[in-house]
């Protein structure tokens, strides 16, 4: 059964990568088996901590995160010839993981609650923010907030908004790297990030208000 899944995953990998940037350069770099293994262990594996955390913040489930990360690493090994050694392995891996999640993983999800929840969030997040304004947080609003509340606020954002916050504010990717990972123009990265931060700050303010601190904030 596992082997069948593996074959299926590889067929889907071909489909996913066929429409992506990687396919254009998929035979560009020739590596011996020894070099492939070295690249895998020296350049890909050091990023497994942040890859796992990225997967967890997308799926909210430990088993799903493990499947997604394993799938990503196996695809990375299989398509290592599209990676130029010494370049930005982390961004390349993030791109594969993000594509796997969007194109493959979410389609297979049979859990209706997740889908319904996401749809509600998409709707909510689309209509409640003025793009021209910037939301500010007062120091006393956030200083008493605990990690769970901040995580919950982040996790409640729609996937597109959550992703740019993770990539920029937590992982420190540049706008250019984010544009490549997400397949969107840099201008869209900037506007999406601005909107995502406003949404997150609004949610943090709501949490703070419910908890009884930062009450003076409007």
């Amino acid at each position, binding site marked *: 059964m596992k082997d069948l899944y593996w074959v299926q995953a590889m067929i889907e990998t071909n489909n996913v990568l066929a429409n992506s940037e990687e396919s254009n350069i998929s035979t560009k770099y020739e590596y011996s088996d020894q070099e492939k293994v070295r690249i895998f262990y020296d350049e890909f*594996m050091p990023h497994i901590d942040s890859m*796992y955390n990225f997967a967890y913040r997308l799926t909210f489930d430990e088993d799903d995160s*493990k499947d997604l990360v394993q799938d990503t690493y*196996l695809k990375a090994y*299989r398509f290592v010839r599209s990676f130029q050694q010494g370049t930005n392995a982390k961004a390349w891996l993030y791109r594969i993981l993000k594509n796997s999640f969007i194109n493959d993983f979410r389609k297979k999800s049979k859990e209706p609650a997740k889908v319904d929840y996401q749809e509600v969030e998409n709707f909510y997040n689309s209509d409640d923010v003025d793009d021209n304004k910037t939301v500010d947080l007062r120091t006393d609003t956030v200083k008493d907030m605990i990690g769970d509340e901040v995580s919950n606020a982040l996790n409640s954002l729609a996937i597109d908004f959550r992703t740019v916050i993770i990539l920029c504010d937590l992982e420190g990717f540049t706008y250019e790297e984010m544009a490549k990972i997400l397949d969107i123009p840099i201008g869209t990265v900037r506007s999406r990030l601005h909107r995502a931060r406003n949404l997150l700050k609004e949610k943090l303010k709501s949490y703070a208000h419910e908890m009884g601190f930062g009450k003076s904030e409007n």
Partner: protein
Amino acid sequence: MALNKDEHSECEKFIELISLMLDNEASSEEEEYLAQHVDDSAPCLEKLESEKEYREMLKKKIGMKEVPVDLINAIKTKIKSLV
């Protein structure tokens, strides 16, 4: 801090620049331009501090989960079988 209309229009153009600078996306000229303005503008200084605090708070409050050892082992085993 509430801004009056003139202050708001004057400072509005710097708000995006503050984000760019903190994201390490501003040029050195832009950073210098912003630094000069912030010296004379309490609202923009406050905005800059607020944005710094937001970023520091996120990194501090959102912890990293530890990667399960069985995941690392499973990946290594799969790779060995492919070599």
